[in-house]
Every structure is written in structure tokens, then in C-alpha cells.
């Protein structure tokens, strides 16, 4: 099997792809403007912000795939 074939076959590649999906979500959550998420004038306090908690959850899950995948 070629080097690329071996890399594609490896379970580690799958884990890295899974981590990349979470990374993409994290980037999107960081850059998406608030007006896309909340109606005009609505600003939750930071500890009640679904965006912040979603970032925390996605980061934990990405770390799981990077460390244990």
C-alpha cells in the first residue's frame, strides 16, 4: 500500500477529520456576527450565552478526538 493509501486507511486520519469538523464549527461560532444569531437588541449576558457554551463543548469534543482518536 502506498504512503497515501496507508494514511487514508489509518484510524488516526479519521480522528483528525472528526477533530477538523469540530474545529470548523468553532471557527464559525467565533466569526459569525451576533445579528445572525440574535434578534436586534438582544444580547444575553456572557455566562448565559449559548455561543460561549457551544464553544466550550465543541472544544472539549475536538480535544477528545485529538488526544484519544
Amino acid at each position: 500500500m502506498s504512503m497515501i493509501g496507508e494514511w487514508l486507511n489509518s484510524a488516526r486520519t479519521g480522528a483528525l477529520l472528526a477533530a477538523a469538523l469540530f474545529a470548523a464549527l468553532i471557527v464559525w461560532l467565533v466569526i459569525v456576527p451576533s445579528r445572525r444569531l440574535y434578534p436586534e437588541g438582544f444580547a444575553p449576558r456572557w455566562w448565559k450565552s449559548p455561543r460561549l457554551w457551544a464553544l466550550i463543548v465543541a472544544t472539549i469534543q475536538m480535544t477528545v478526538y485529538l488526544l484519544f482518536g
Partner: protein
Amino acid sequence: MELHAIDAALVVAYLAVVTAIGLWVSRGGVSTTRGLFLADRSLPWWAVGTSLVVTDIGAKDMVGLADDGYRYGLVMTNFDFLGCVLPVLVAAFVFMPYLWMAGVYTIPEYLGRRYNPTVRTMFALIWGLFMVGTLAVICVSAASVFEDILGWSFWTSVLVTAGVVGVYTTFGGLKAVVMTDFVSCAVLIAGAALICVYGLRETGGWSGLQERIAALPADQFHTEHHFDLMLPADSDTPFAWPAVVLGLGFVLGPAYWIGNQAIVQRSFGAKSQHEARAAYVLCAAIKLVFPLLLVVPGLIGLALFHDQLGPADGPQWKKGGVLPQVVQLLPRGVLGVVLGAFLSGVMNNLDSYVNSATTLWVNDIYRPLLRPRASDHECVIVGRWMVVGMLAGGAVGSYFVRQRFDSVYEAFQTFMSFFQGTLFALLLLGILTRRATGAGGLAGLVVGVGSAVAMVFSGVSYLWVSWWSFVAAGAATVLVSLCTPRIDDSRLRGLVYWLPPPPESASEAPPPSDSSSE
């Protein structure tokens, strides 16, 4: 196994508490379809979030994931990690607000508005059949544990389960279902955690578990990758990483969390869009730990009971047999809590799916097709009778599920793969593009479901069925849409990501300030 009095008392106490909460919440009665199916949009985020968890995870998962954890190992956690956490977060921020703002009761209703009424009707019929299949799966998973622990026959287990939940669900409505789910979620987590704690104590901790499994003959038990989160692409199992990432991560997971009526209906019942979004995030947070609690019992079963259960392809193997073996490790009192958790898993799953199935049949079939002039009161009564019909169908179907599938989890996923890829393609194109047309949606539906049926009967793994039916449905929708006239933008406002509703029609928008949502 003999059930001790203290365990029986705990189970009875649990049932009494849940029933009392259900009755207290639904005091005053439910007299409208909006109350019965959407809880009058009054549900708080914490209740919706925990209800989302237990609608997804129930008896079928406790039994099925223990079986599959025994056979395949930690790779099964991907069904929650990649198949849940990721799509739930995407759903919370991209899809759910548009479904919520549309003010619909069901996913087919949304598809009907976005595409055309034929798409709505066809999806409602497919969903209705899927719901009956799901009820059958839940009945089988309940029976497999009741047979072993209580000594009941298969049919007694199925009939008692369907009967008890039928009475409870007929009168409860969505509010009672969701509020009891909050208690059940706590009991379910506690029960699953107790199985892991006592099991791991018996194996000598996590390292002891690994050593015991490593010592098993790998050629018989195929344990080479039992502690790996991903399997190589050339794995003999259905869970090679390309199937997991493409089939589960891109299609099956998102389709389930964005398009499953039983799931989405909970968010439709939330007080506001903000609360619905917070509920999804809470669900994702809980799902960070829950899958381990469901898969690890399978590994414990493999380490401790491989002599009794044998290899999964051997003559000793019994479907749904791992969990009943593992719960034998529990001491008196603890077994009662775990049985309570199992019962809550059965009840939550069953009442959630029955409630959603009823919503579909009444909202998308009965009212628009059979009785357009039916009053709200008539629909509530019809809905209650449909609960009985659905449960009867599920009980009969349970016989076929038991005969046909190796595990209840596989049965559930196979049923979903018939249409989830197609559904997700239509939702994705419907919400994210303006160009998808009614004819395109119909073509996508026919091609997607048709190809999925062909693949399932050709023996293709359900993860690949999901992926390829998604591709086929998406391609057909795009192709036909490009050949047919586009839908006017004014008809798509509030249904498509790029076309928000006009301000005056956003009557159910989230509260204007943070303080009002506290």
C-alpha cells in the same frame, strides 16, 4: 434473577414520582392540539434540553449499545460524539431558528411550506411508518431485559410496556412528557453511572478492564480495536472511519438531530428561540459523557461474562443479552435504581415517539387530507386514539424486529437510513438555498428513498446507505430544481436562511432583552 423487595420498592417509588409529576404538570387538562403537541410553547430550556437527551437515549440504547460495545468497543461512542454533539450544535445555530420561526408543528409541515404539499404528505407517511418501527424496537429492548430480570415472556413484556405507557401518554401531552423527562434524565444518568462504577470495580478499574479484554483470544472476539475511537478504513466492521465520518457525521447524525420529529418537536415547545437554542447546547454538553456510560457496560460484559455470552457470531450469543448479565453485579438497592433508569428509558422513548407520531398523523395526514374541517377538539380525540393504534402497531412489529436484526440499535439505525439521508438533503437545500423548487424536492425524495431501499435490500451497511441516499437525493433535487421555475422570494421569507421573515411577522421572536428570559 430474583428482584429483592427493596429494589421493587425503589422501582415502584420511581414510577409513582414520575406519574405524580406528570399529573401535576398536566393538571387542568389539555384541550387543544397546540397544548397537546407543543405544550403551548411554554417549556423552559433545562426541561427541553434534558428531554432531548432522553428522547434520544432510552432503553434501546442501554440494551443496544451494551451489545454493540461488547462486539465493537469504544467506536460506538461516535454515535453520540460525532453523531450528536456536532449536529446538535449546528442545529442550534443554523437550522433550529428557521424551523422555530416557521411556527410549524412538524418537519413535514415545514417541507410542505418550503417545497409543496406532496412532499409533506409523502414524508409524513414515511415518518409514520418509521415511528411504528421505532416503537417496535423500543418494545423489543424492553422485553429483552424484562425477560431476563423479571422472568416474563416476550409477549407479556411487550404488552405490559405498551399498555402502561399508552395510558400515561394518552392523557399527558407534550408538557407532561417533557417535564417527566427531566426527572428521568437524572435517574438514567445515575443508573448508567452505577453500572459502570460497580462493573469497573469488578474488573479492577479501567486498566484491569483493558488487560482482561486484551487477554481474550482476538480471533474469536475480534478485540484488536475495542479501545479505539476510530477504526481503520479497511476494518471488517460496519464502522470503518470513512463510513463513520461521512455516513454518521455528515448525514445520519445531522438528519436525526435536525429532522427527527420526536427531537425537533421538543424545541418547538420551548418558550422562545433563545431557550430552544440553550436547550440544544445543554443537550450537547450532557452528550459529552453519556455515551461512555452506555458503551462501557458492553466492555465490562466482555471482560467478565465472555464465557456465558461467547463471541457475537457464536451460538451462545443472545441479542440484548449483555446488559442483563452486567446488572447482576449490582447489589440490592442499586439494582432498583438501575431498573428505574431502564423503565424511565422505556417510558421516555415510547411516550416521546408516540406523542410525535400522533402529531404527524393528525397534523399532516388526518387534518389536511381526510378531514380539513375537523375541529381542534376532534383532532385531540383522534390523536388520543392514534396513541392506541401506534402502540398496537409497535407491539406487532416487535416480533419482526426480534427475528430480523442482530441488535435493536442496528434495527433503529437501519430504519432511519431508509429516509434520513433524503430528509437531510431536502432540509439542507430547503433552508440554505433559495433555488430548490417543489418539483426538485419531490424528485429528491423519490430518488433518495428509492436508492436507500435498494441499498438496504442489497445488504449495504446503514452508514453507507445514509451517505449515498443523501448524495442521490441532493443531486436529484439540484438537477430538477435547475430545470424548473424558481419559487418567488416572498413565499420563502422565514423559511430560508438568506430570507429572514419581515419584522412585523416575527411574532414569536425571542424576548427583546436578557432579563425577560430568566
